[in-house]
């Protein structure tokens, strides 16, 4: 466990090699990256036995979990230390398989999807860099290292969103993503420093220990945790910083699957989960998490209902599902949140890769111009449907189990109306995922050009789809303690996810599960009844409530609002300051000073008349004055 630093070290090394020499390597070095991914997956699974059996004792105890550490910065012989350390615990052990498996699938898939692209090696190099940063993020034992990795994944996301930078829209999207998340990161940075100020440490476990001991002022702690949450809001695309994620779909589709669905965007969830013992101390901050998640889930769900770009629908769905996770965190059900993170990673990656398969085949992304693809692309269709069922929360599939947990937690620990809202959003999820499937794969083909062009994707792309579809089907069963125990985790997976106050998953609560199932099926039913593969219905929906439709299509006008704020307020302020600097400081102050001196010189030079009597008079007056002073002193 103390050798966990090797995990990110491998992809970093590969990143350097491929980025610098990728062009010279055979196949531009993609096999190196995949090999690295395979090694990481292997190493992650070699770590799993260390966790077996230990949980029933109430603490996970692989020896030397924190053994690896060194001082990155040390001022005054230990007065101010920034250590680098790895920390592996249950939450990490949920993240590691998710990151490594999805990453490997995406890498393999990319070999087919990105085939023949310019900058092929650069794509793989950045992918490798991203994985290194993501692994560092989940392994880091202290906040500075976490921040470092946090920005690292942000950079990788920026570079990959802007991968097709020749497109103006991609450049804009990359810019938007970077700046928006950076706003959140300001909060994260402030939060980290505030926590350090109170505890004198950057070590996450130290901070949690001090915070739980109640030594920190309650208000101060609340403010700190809110700032920390701001970072999570930015990275996990929560309201009001959610605007960047839908635009981020400008990147290559496998990237959307890996970074903007399965791994990077859940970093915020991971952060809040990591600090959940502290959030449990400051309930106001936790309520903020809860309501932020709720607002986001509802907003994004409704926006997903009208989006016409296949990837955007999935992006809204991702934002919405992340909202679900934050809702769970807000009720304190960390287990449920991490579980949903776990299952969501698989089925959402599957959906994105499936949509990538469609885009690869048809070069079209608008669902209204697709349709009927199931005859041409049976494998893609099957796996996509499985993913949608999981997303909709149909029993057996992974999403059902985790979403059910979140709903149960909401009913238990939150006002009833929030439960109703969230359940409604779950139905909404089922509706829009059904819509997506129907419009894309069923009905009659609407754009014959795209349809004729379509073909099933090569096996190197279908393989990952099948594996992910399998995982999207079975990942939910991990929740059952019986399954967990049979895999060697004595306390079951419930404790693997979160040690304290672990929610036992021995048996589902049948009533809630029944309601959820009914909801999901009802949603699917509504979807089928309404659309059943007919594009004209999509148009009809637009005419049915044009105002509402416009509101949703324009994303509640939040993008416009932000754009206006940036254009008017921030750039306006910039203009004012720039004007101030140019006119007042420079032209009035500096140039004005110089001009004053020049003007004075011009005025004073007229004292020089050139007339000898004037000079003589001046001399005389001076002489007399001096003489008078001299005599005056004597007298």
């Amino acid at each position, binding site marked *: 466990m103390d050798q966990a630093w090797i995990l990110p070290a491998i992809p970093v090394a590969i990143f350097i090699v491929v980025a610098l020499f990728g062009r010279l390597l055979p196949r531009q070095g993609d096999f190196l990256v995949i090999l690295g991914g395979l090694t990481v997956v292997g190493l992650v699974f070699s770590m799993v036995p260390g966790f077996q059996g230990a949980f029933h004792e109430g603490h996970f105890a692989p020896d030397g979990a924190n053994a690896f550490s060194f001082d990155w910065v040390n001022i005054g012989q230990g007065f101010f230390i920034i250590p680098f350390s790895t920390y592996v615990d249950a939450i990490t052990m949920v993240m590691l398989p998710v990151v490594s498996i999805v990453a490997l699938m995406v890498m393999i898939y990319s070999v087919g999807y990105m085939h023949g692209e310019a900058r092929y090696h650069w794509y793989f190099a950045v992918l490798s860099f991203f994985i290194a940063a993501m692994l560092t993020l989940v392994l880091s034992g202290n906040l500075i290292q976490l921040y470092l990795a946090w920005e690292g994944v942000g950079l990788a996301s920026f570079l990959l969103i802007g991968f097709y930078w020749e497109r103006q829209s991609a450049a804009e999207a990359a810019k938007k993503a970077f700046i928006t998340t950076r706003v959140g990161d300001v909060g994260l940075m402030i939060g980290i420093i505030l926590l350090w100020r109170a505890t004198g440490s950057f070590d996450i476990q130290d901070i949690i220990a001090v915070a739980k001991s109640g030594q920190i002022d309650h208000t101060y702690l609340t403010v700190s945790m809110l700032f920390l949450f701001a970072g999570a809001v930015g990275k996990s695309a929560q309201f009001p910083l959610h605007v960047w994620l839908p635009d981020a779909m400008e990147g290559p589709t496998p990237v959307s699957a890996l970074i903007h669905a399965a791994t990077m965007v859940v970093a915020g969830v991971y952060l809040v989960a990591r600090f959940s013992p502290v959030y449990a101390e400051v309930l106001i901050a936790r309520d903020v998490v809860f309501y932020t998640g709720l607002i986001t889930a509802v907003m994004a769900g409704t926006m997903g209902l009208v989006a016409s770009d296949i990837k955007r629908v999935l992006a809204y769905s991702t934002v919405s599902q992340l909202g679900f996770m934050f809702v769970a965190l807000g009720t304190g059900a960390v287990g449920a949140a991490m579980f949903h993170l776990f299952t969501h990673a698989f089925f959402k990656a599957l959906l994105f890769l499936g949509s990538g398969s469609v885009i690869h085949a048809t070069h079209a992304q608008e669902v209204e111009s697709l349709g009927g693809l199931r005859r041409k692309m049976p494998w893609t269709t099957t796996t996509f449907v499985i993913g949608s069922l999981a997303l909709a929360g149909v029993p057996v599939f992974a999403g059902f189990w985790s979403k059910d947990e979140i709903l149960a937690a909401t009913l238990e620990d939150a006002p009833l109306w929030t439960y109703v809202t969230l359940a409604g959003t779950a139905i909404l999820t089922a509706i829009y995922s059904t819509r997506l499937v129907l419009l894309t794969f069923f009905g009659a083909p609407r754009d014959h050009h795209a349809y004729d062009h379509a073909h099933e994707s090569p096996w190197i792309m279908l393989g990952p789809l099948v594996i992910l579809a399998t995982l999207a089907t079975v990942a939910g069963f991990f929740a059952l303690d019986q399954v967990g125990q049979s895999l060697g985790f004595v306390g079951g997976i419930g404790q693997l996810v979160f040690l304290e106050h672990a929610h036992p998953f021995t048996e589902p609560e049948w009533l809630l599960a029944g309601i959820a199932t009914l909801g999901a099926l009802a949603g699917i039913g509504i979807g089928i009844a309404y659309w059943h593969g007919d594009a004209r219905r999509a148009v009809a929906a637009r005419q049915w409530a044009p105002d509402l439709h416009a509101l949703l299509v324009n994303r509640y006008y939040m993008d416009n609002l932000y754009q206006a704020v940036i254009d008017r307020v921030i750039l306006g302020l910039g203009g004012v300051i720039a004007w101030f600097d140019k006119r007042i400081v420079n032209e009035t102050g500096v140039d004005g000073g110089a001009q004053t001196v020049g003007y004075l010189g011009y005025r004073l*030079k*007229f004292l*020089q*008349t*050139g*007339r000898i*009597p004037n000079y*003589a008079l001046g001399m*005389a007056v001076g002489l007399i004055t001096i003489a008078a002073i001299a005599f005056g002193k004597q007298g």
Partner: protein
Amino acid sequence: MIPIQSFLVLSALLFAIGFYGVLARRSAILILISVELMLAAVAINFIAFATYRDPKAFSGLVFALFVIAVAAAEVGLALGIVLRLFRERRTANVDEANSLKW
């Protein structure tokens, strides 16, 4: 012996007349003459004090000789300048020679 005050008053009068001439006259020649008057006043001062303090010492008289020599040199130089000025401007009026400015 004539009291020293008489010499001093004479010298002061001469100096004042010369000073007035320098300030009030327009003609370069007259200014020059006024300067000579001032120099003469200084020379009288030197001689008076020298004789008054120690009649046997010559230092004051030597200074007076110096003054006369400097005055002669000065007049030579100044008349040269005035001559040039007159050749250039057809006038010896110093008010018109005011280009040495700005």
